């Protein structure tokens, strides 16, 4: 007997939950007031709910099918797993997307799939979902398609006309890791696909000669995901891989996904509690690299094993290891150095830069900006405040350490 839609939705969303991304931001602004259709995207994405795992639910994140002819060890859908299988039709995915959207549960769709028959066959079905949503249903919401490895360039190009974002997962931070755990995937092919997509995106950004208009093509760019903690790669290597991806392929985002135990998992993989704190630190480091002017080498320099400190955030860890760069005078220092003060975010720094044109700033001023004085006081000079010799104290690090907590076992 055919499984009900609800039952299949349960299976195919369960199978999708290991993908970290649920972002719906960074695409073009558009709405339906002129077309009279359905849907809009207005800059920043919206999280319509949060699951008890603390993750944002912005998109309907599902698989077209969890049947798969590949056997990637870390994946719940791998061919050797005994997980219950199901499949949606193209029209069912469209129906779910539109009905969920109308009730304001979601910003749009994030569709991926196991590989059935062939890469092209699978990719073609996914493209049909996106095309029909746009052309038949006049849908302006967000669409993210995960491209199928080795799908033809023509299909990827068509996908890009209808999707806001495309992603190709790098899966593991090193080539050796991919080869060991995803025997049917090839790192060189993954990189080639990313490179081709980048070229097409660049091409579309150029206005055409005739119409002087830019083609809409993957306006929210491409992203990827790396699984953390399934193999022994250290953080320095992981972040190095990210830096190459950001630089070489202009990825918008690299997602880190703490390896999470899956039902019926492969015996080659650790059954561990997902390293959530490590994942969090990697995101912080990634952020410092993209928005705070840090080099990866600076961030990972602190420890010989190439791992980030789990107890301190990477900015604080850097500051403690580079005390000679402090204290920073908030009434004088340039923006670059202000951004390096632990406890200052980009907004705080902008407020400081604006306010100090008119007055000399004191600690009270920072307090009003909701800066934690406790955190910053050792690192800054303000009107009426010098950090004394806090910076010389050998127990400075201890002052920032979290209070000991009972460790919980799996």
């Amino acid at each position: 007997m055919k499984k009900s839609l609800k039952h299949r939705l349960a299976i195919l969303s369960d199978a999708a939950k290991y993908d970290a991304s649920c972002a719906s931001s960074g695409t073009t602004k558009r709405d339906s007031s002129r077309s009279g259709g359905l849907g809009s995207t207005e800059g920043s994405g919206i999280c319509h709910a949060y699951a008890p795992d603390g993750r944002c639910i912005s998109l309907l994140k599902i698989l077209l099918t969890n049947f798969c002819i590949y056997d990637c060890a870390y994946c719940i859908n791998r061919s050797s797993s005994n997980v219950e299988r199901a499949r949606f039709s193209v029209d069912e995915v469209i129906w779910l997307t539109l009905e969920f959207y109308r009730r304001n549960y979601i910003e749009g769709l994030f569709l991926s799939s196991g590989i059935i028959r062939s890469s092209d066959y699978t990719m073609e079905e996914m493209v049909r979902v996106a095309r029909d949503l746009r052309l038949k249903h006049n849908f302006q919401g967000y669409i993210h398609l995960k491209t199928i490895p080795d799908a033809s360039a023509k299909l990827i190009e068509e996908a890009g006309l209808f999707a806001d974002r495309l992603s190709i997962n790098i899966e593991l931070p090193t080539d050796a890791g991919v080869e060991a755990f995803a025997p049917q995937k090839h790192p060189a092919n993954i990189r080639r696909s990313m490179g081709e997509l980048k070229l097409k995106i660049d091409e579309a950004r150029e206005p055409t000669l005739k119409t002087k208009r830019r083609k809409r093509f993957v306006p929210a760019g491409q992203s990827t995901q790396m699984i953390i903690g399934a193999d022994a790669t250290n953080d320095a290597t992981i972040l190095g891989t990210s830096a190459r991806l950001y630089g070489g392929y202009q990825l918008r985002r690299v997602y880190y996904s703490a390896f999470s135990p899956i039902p019926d998992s492969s015996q080659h993989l650790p059954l561990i509690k997902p390293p959530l704190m490590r994942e969090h630190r990697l995101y912080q480091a990634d952020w410092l690299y993209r928005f705070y002017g840090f080099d990866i080498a600076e961030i990972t320099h602190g420890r010989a094993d190439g791992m980030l400190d789990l107890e301190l955030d990477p900015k604080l860890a850097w500051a403690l290891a580079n005390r000679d760069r402090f204290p920073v005078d908030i009434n004088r220092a340039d923006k670059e150095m202000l951004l390096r003060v632990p406890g200052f975010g980009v907004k705080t720094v902008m407020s400081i830069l604006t306010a100090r044109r008119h007055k000399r700033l004191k600690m009270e001023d920072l307090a009003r900006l909701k800066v934690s004085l406790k955190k910053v006081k050792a690192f800054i000079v303000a009107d009426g405040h010098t950090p004394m010799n806090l910076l010389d104290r050998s127990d400075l690090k201890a002052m920032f350490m979290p209070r000991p907590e009972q460790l919980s076992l799996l």
Partner: protein
Amino acid sequence: MRIVIDRRGDFEEWRDHARHLLSAGIRPDAVEWLDRAALGDDLFGADEATFETKAALTVPRGFVECAQVVVCHADLAAYGVLYRLLWRLQTERHLLSITTDPDVVRAHQMAKSVGRDSHKMKAFVRFKELPAVEGRTQRQFLAWFEPDHYIVGRTAGFFQRRFTDMDWVIATPKGSASWDGDALTVSAHPACNPELVDDTDDLWRTYFANIFNPARLKVKMMQTEMPKKYWKNLPEADLIPDLIAGAEERVRAMAAKPATTAPKFHYSIHKIKG
């Protein structure tokens, strides 16, 4: 001087009063702002005064934008904060750039709170479908929402731009908004909860339960982003306690399960002997 506000969250109403007060030279601390709805029949009423209106005021760029947001704040004090800023701006032209000034900070915090509430409204409104209306092809939807601030007016446009091809109403205790394909109507009247049901909520709940990864429980994070005060109008929220309670056991059971042998198709796909 008592000023009675008729339409909370209405920037123009505040502006008209503020203009009059300012041209009459009335100091901020001499003004008491009152809410007509809160006064009820107890008619202390406004002070009747006629001012002569001077030419249009000039204010720095950014003030109007900020005031339009702050005026939506549920705390009536917002009206006073804005008037004080306006008053001070007459002599301190750079006031808004002093981002650490107590009045500026207060206004910013209020604006932030209103902004957050508007954002949460865009996120947490849940439309329920109503039966079709005869002679209308557009589908009919209604949502009940309880915002903290008077934000229905400023958020209505978002829903109109997004849900253009359907008819909808958003009803709240602080006013309502509706769209019929032609006109967006906003009313300040408090509405009542219509307590509707929509079968599609069941599919959404299925999705919510299954997209959750029990091995990554982070309850605090969820609650900061989706505070409990919103839960009662979210169809998925009553699943949360059980999902949390069962998470650890699910992970343990998963780990305890013995390894299985791969299904047959695995061997045929990869041409290996089973």
